[in-house]
Every structure is written in C-alpha cells, then in structure tokens.
C-alpha cells in the first residue's frame, strides 16, 4: 500500500521527459547547413568575366552591337556557355538606355540565384561609342 501511495518517482519521470523535450526542441532550432555548400556565385562571376573578355578580343562584341546583330550576339554568348547555364544579356548605351529591343536570353531563369556582371566595351568605329553589357547568369542545380 505504501508503494502505491508514493507518487514522487512518477513526477521525476515526467520532469525528465519534459526536460528531454525542451533539450531536443532547442537543438532543432540550430540551423543545419547544406551538406555540400559550394560557392556557385563566385564561380559564375568568374565565368561571366571570362566569357565577356574572351568574346571581346579585337573589339568583337562592340562590332556586333554596332551592327545591332542581336541574334549573333545571343549565339556568341550561348556558344561559350554550357547548356545548363541560363543567361540574359542586356546592352545599354552611355546613358544606360536599353538598346536590345528583345531579351537576349536562352530561357527563363533556372533559379533565383542570379549573378550580374557589367562589362564596358568601346566601338572601334570613329565615334568610339561606349556600350555597357550586363550579363546575368544562373546555373541549374545551384541552391
């Protein structure tokens, strides 16, 4: 009878359960980083700079923009990028007015992590027209 009336132990077990739940709840608030956290942004910026610099040898990009050959410009950028990379190129004049009448892009962005690189090139004609090329890139699979 004495054994059945002693309720102190039950209270301790309940306390222990509550303490465990509290402990586990606190731990669940600790942010878990992704297992393979790479740095896609840095690589994409480097890729964008490499492509723009390589394509612009001998003022090639400015010559294409001079001729308003937007399809050629799109094909040039597309040829230098892997199929898994989305791009959008916008060409501005000196006053930052958009020159391309339609988007120079290969599709819709693959995710919301988009990097943007501005590149200034100068036309080799007698006017030395300045253009600003804004290349935006996003990669399939980057999170």
């Amino acid at each position: 009878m004495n054994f059945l009336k002693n309720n102190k132990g039950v209270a301790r077990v309940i306390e222990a359960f509550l303490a465990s739940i509290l402990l586990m709840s606190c731990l669940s608030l600790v942010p878990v980083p992704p297992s393979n956290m790479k740095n896609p942004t840095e690589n994409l910026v480097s890729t964008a700079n490499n492509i723009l610099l390589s394509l612009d040898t001998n003022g090639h990009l400015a010559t294409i923009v001079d001729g308003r050959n937007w399809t050629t410009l799109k094909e040039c950028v597309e040829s230098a990028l892997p199929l898994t990379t989305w791009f959008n190129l916008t060409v501005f004049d000196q006053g930052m007015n958009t020159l391309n009448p339609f988007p120079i892009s290969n599709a819709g962005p693959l995710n919301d992590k988009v990097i943007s690189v501005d590149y200034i090139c100068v036309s080799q004609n007698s006017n030395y027209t300045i253009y600003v090329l804004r290349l935006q890139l996003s990669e399939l699979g980057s999170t």
Partner: protein
Amino acid sequence: MPSTSIDTFFACTILLAAALMSTAFLTSTMQTTLSSTQDINKESYLKGIADNILTNTGNPTNWGLSNNVPMDFGLAANSSIENYEVDPDKICRLNPQNDYSLSYFDLENSAKLINIGLGITVSQIMSINIQQSGRSTIGNNENLNFTILTSIDSKPVSATLQCYIVANNYLGFLNNATTSDIGLGFINTQIPIGASGNSNLIVFARSSFDSRITSYTIYNIANSSQESTPNNDLLDLSPLNYRLTLSTNSSDLTVQGCFIFSYNYEDQSIINIQNIQNSSQIQLPRLIDNSPFVIIVYGVENGLFFQEWTAYPQIPLNAGSNFSGSEQNVFSYIVTINGILCKLDISLGDVPP
C-alpha cells in the same frame, strides 16, 4: 530497493540518453559546417591556382618555343595584349604526341604543385561529326557521299564548310558547302579509283555567327572512320614554332611532301627526305587565318604510299592526370589560341591535409 530510487534511475537514464543524442547531433552539425567552410576555401584556393596557370606566361616567358623545362609553368601567350590568350606552342608542348612534350613530373614541378593532381584538357568549341552515307563507282572514279553534323555543346549550329581530300597524287577541294540551322550538311565528291586506298577527308567548319569558332576534323576514307587524334603509326609529327619535326622507326621511309591546310588556305611543300633522322625538320608557312592548321606529310614506306597528319596547335588534347578514382575539381575557360576560340579545362585534385 524503494520505488523512488527506481523512478529516479529511470529518469536519469532518459536524461542521459537525451544528452548523448544532443551531443552527437551537435557534433555532426558542427562537422558539416566546418567541412563546408573548408570546401569553399579549397575551391577558392584551387580556382586561384587555375587562374594563375592560365593568365601567367611562365618563366621563361617563351618556354613553348624550346624543348627546355620551364622554371615556372604558365600558358598565357608571351606579350599578349588580349585576356585569356594562350600560346599555341605551349599547348603543343602539353600534347603527349609531341616529341617536346612536358612529362607529368615536369608539369607538376614547374607548376609548383606539391601533391595536387593537375590535368589540362583543350577542346574545340564546335564539334564536327562525319558519317559516310554512300559509296559507288562511276567510270574511273569513286563517288563518295558524306553527312556532316556541326554542333556546339550538343546543340546543332549552322556553319560553312571547307573540305579537302588528300590521296595518292590527288588533291581535291570542296568549297561552299554549308550545314543548315539544324547543323546538317551533305557533301559529295569523286576521287580516282586506286587513290582512295590511303586518303583523308579534311573538313573545316566555321560557325555562321563568329569566324573565331572554327574547327576541323579528319575522316580516314580507307578505314571509314573519323579520327580526332592522329595515329602516327609510321611517322611522328611534332609541330613547334612553325617547324615540324619528323621522327620514325622505319628504315625504308621517304618523305616526299607536306601539305598545310587552314579554313581559307592550302600550301604544299615538295620535299624529298630519305632515311629520316630525328632532327629532320620542315619549315611551315605562317598562314594568317583564324583557323587551326592541319598538316599532312606524305611519302613512301617500303614502296607503299602513306600519309600522316597532325594539327597545329595540337588540339584536342588531354594532358596530365586522368584523376581515376580520385577527387577532380574542374575549372572551365574560354580561351583564344591563334585567333580561334577554344575550351580549356584545368583539373586539380584534392588539397592534401
């Protein structure tokens, strides 16, 4: 034992289990965080090495012209004013088929990479695929039909084609062929019967939107196969600094002539070199053309006509480690080599702890 003691023991066990679980959870979380940070640092570190290899000329700056091992390794063209311009001779010295190529040991030492694997791959941006679609005899000639597919990264692109056929005492041209927007083109040619025994079809393709994207490929008509790299069974050809070094193991081999082809030009040198020594060299003309050059050397070996080919610069190529079963970090670049755009991948292995 009183019941309170049993209950206390039970409660302590639960608490201890929870504490152990939380410790394990925290450890794994912290470990993941630390390794992710290390990954980012490692990637930045390796990217810096790859950038340095590509943008640095090395020491001496013109190490590609000689057969010496550079003190510092770098692929950038000497005194170039353009970014990402790579020296064609330095590229040739990476190709294992070149007599003056750097060994993997030399490559690692000159790049100052200790215990980090290095691999370099150079490829053409546009791929050309040739398939023989028909073969028939008309009079004294053999009629050959080919289907050509041009693509960039598996996406079909239109291109203009320049084709040459080199056979025994025969040189044929095919101008004005093109591939359509779906990358498909057809060529039809005739060569004299008997000449096709050891003949090659050389195809240059130039993209319709950028003349710097010009590629080549070779189709061996006798074997009905496309060759992306030369076999050089009879004669080793090593181009460097517009000089072609010839070497062979055959005792009865006579070189009669040499062709050099580019997209726009063709040049033939009639020569006669018998009993080739290792030092036998042919001076190549400096064609001014945004195009890879294909060099064909022909002659007679044991009374039979032969021809061997190589390209200048010697691309495509794979140099260094193949990273079989080990970590490989690839950094891709678009570079200019002799006025043509190419894809260059630098692969680096894991950083030692």
